[in-house]
């Protein structure tokens, strides 16, 4: 099992609660409310029912015979792309929206990068009768115009973050500024395993359903754990979700970062958005802008538990380039008939690169989202022929 952080919210030397005093009482209240809900059988069964009847869980495993034989490995996908709203984000946000309602909050704010968490938040808010505002970087709103429209269709208000790099990092800043002003009646639904304690723990628990299912499914399919478990990492919620099922065993755990947003690979410990974690920053402690083809991974930090898993050596965090990602995106579409989210194409890009060193091995990849949202952007990159 992944360990529980201490009372100070630390995973080893990472995590904590670095927020303005205005928000500290809200974080303490949230910690108590989450602990209470998570140990309440009624809350857990209500969440399980929503995951089954609304989100469509459990998600299946798909074995990629074509791509597997081409790469010389046994490749298995955990199909989080088949969840309602098209990604793993719904697992977390259904939990948080239920918690918000239980805490008597009427309004929810969220940040989003590619729009997956924003769409999931707007969806959960519509279902549970909460008012919802989503902050999204102005650049990302252009890259992901369809997701912006989706959120609006679902009744959410989408507000552009116009400061800094105008991407995910700045959307988090704006969401935190909103929460500072509205904390008494507003719930902040963070979309990844990041932010101040208890968010990294809470989001991990809500995403651990991925790993719990995958562990049992692998056991049925393979009779054992896979040799390698691979997921992409921005903040790192889909990765921590699938890792949680295998961290006790001997599977190699690999979190793949974008080369332009490699917090673990290129960062040093720093403090932003409420947490101490690996962070891309300059020598004066100014946070650097991430650059990735994938809006969902365009983040200079990473969840603190990943920093801990990296520091202790239990997981590794290589990076891949945009070009490798584009090639992997096309490869999966043509060989398996699955268009992956650009985020997940990072995981596949690493598998393709490392396959020669993994011949005959069984590799489980978390396909955390579907690529429909990326189709317009890829048409710009590849041209209308689709790169044929």
């Amino acid at each position, binding site marked *: 099992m992944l360990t529980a952080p201490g009372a100070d919210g630390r995973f080893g030397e990472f995590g904590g609660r*670095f*927020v303005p005093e205005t928000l500290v009482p809200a974080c303490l209240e949230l910690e108590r409310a989450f602990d209470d809900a998570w140990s309440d059988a009624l809350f857990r069964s209500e969440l399980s029912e929503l995951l089954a009847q609304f989100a469509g869980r459990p998600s299946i495993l798909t074995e990629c015979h074509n791509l597997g034989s081409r790469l010389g490995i046994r490749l298995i996908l955990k199909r989080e792309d088949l969840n309602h709203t098209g990604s793993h984000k719904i697992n977390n946000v259904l939990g948080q929206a239920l918690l918000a309602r239980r805490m008597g909050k009427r309004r929810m704010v969220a940040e989003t990068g590619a729009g997956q968490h924003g769409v999931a938040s707007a969806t959960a808010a519509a279902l549970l009768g909460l008012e919802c505002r989503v902050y999204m970087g102005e650049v990302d709103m252009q890259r992901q115009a369809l997701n912006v429209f989706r959120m609006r269709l679902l009744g959410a208000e989408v507000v552009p973050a116009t400061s800094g790099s105008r991407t995910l990092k700045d959307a988090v800043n704006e969401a935190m500024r909103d929460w*500072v002003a509205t904390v008494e009646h507003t719930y902040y639904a963070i979309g990844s395993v990041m932010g101040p304690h208890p968010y990294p723990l809470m989001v991990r628990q809500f995403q651990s359903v991925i790993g719990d299912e995958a562990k049992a499914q692998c056991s049925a399919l393979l009779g054992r754990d896979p040799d390698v478990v691979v997921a992409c990492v921005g903040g790192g919620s889909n990765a921590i979700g699938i890792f949680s099922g295998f961290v006790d065993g001997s599977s190699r755990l690999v979190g793949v970062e974008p080369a332009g947003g490699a917090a673990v690979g290129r960062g040093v410990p720093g403090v932003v958005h409420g947490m101490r974690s690996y962070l891309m920053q300059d020598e004066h*402690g*100014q*946070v650097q802008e991430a650059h990735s083809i994938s809006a969902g991974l365009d983040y200079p930090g990473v969840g603190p538990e990943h920093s801990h898993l990296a520091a202790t050596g239990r997981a590794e965090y290589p990076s891949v380039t945009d070009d490798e990602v584009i090639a992997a995106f096309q490869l999966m579409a043509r060989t398996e008939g699955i268009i992956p989210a650009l985020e997940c194409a990072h995981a596949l890009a690493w598998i393709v690169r490392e396959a020669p060193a993994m011949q005959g091995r069984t590799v489980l990849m978390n396909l955390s989202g579907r690529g429909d949202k990326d189709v317009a952007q890829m048409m710009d990159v590849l041209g209308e022929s689709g790169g044929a």
Partner: protein
Amino acid sequence: MSGVLESHLRARRDAGRALLVPYVTGGLAGWADAIRAAAAHGADAIEVGIPFSDPVMDGPVIQAASERALEAGATPVSILDELRGIDAGVPVAVMCYYNTVHSMGHERFAARLASSGVSAAIVPDLSLEEVAPWAIAADGAGVETVMLVAPTSPDERLATIAARSRGFLYTVGLLGVTGERDELASTAVALASRAKRATDLPVLVGVGVSNAAQAAEAVGVADGVVQGASVVRRLMEHGPDAVGEYVAEVRAAIDAAGHPARG
């Protein structure tokens, strides 16, 4: 034993003076002259902001000032170096986000502040639970750590925070980020009176004290005010002289306002 900032503010308060602490973003064009002008026109201390890439407690004016200063090449080191040469005649506190401290290291940052003649530090994203490693280093270097309380802080917590605060107690006047508002929030006065009951430290109201009239209203309860966005906006729009004029106007207004606790 009280530090330089606290002794200075206590002495002035006890002499019946309402306290005025203008905030200036370091590295902004004209910032050094703005500090001198503010000091010459009635500031009791100056708060100097060290610009940060991700200022989550700041509204549009101070965000824009921070971006402008960073674009002009300001760094924590360049600002502290320049501060050493500015003799304002009143104590200086820096306001910075915690990553600036973390990046340089607690001991090095504290020593650097001390050698630049800075009396105190305000680190708004360093909560009571996380402050100890920094506060110990700061205490050791003779730098006072000003703590913040908010309208959401319960009484017991407020008292604990006040006990850890040095220099003065910073009360965040409203739920929200820095910036000018049409009226002083009712939370400002309510929190200041709770703080006054909890501590003998000078109690200052900041965040959302937007003009001379609001400052005068705030010192009806608090010992003084911090003024940020209204000062920084004038510096960006009109330059350092406008800061001096504005500080003089606020000074006159708070001097004219009565205070039950002052003579």
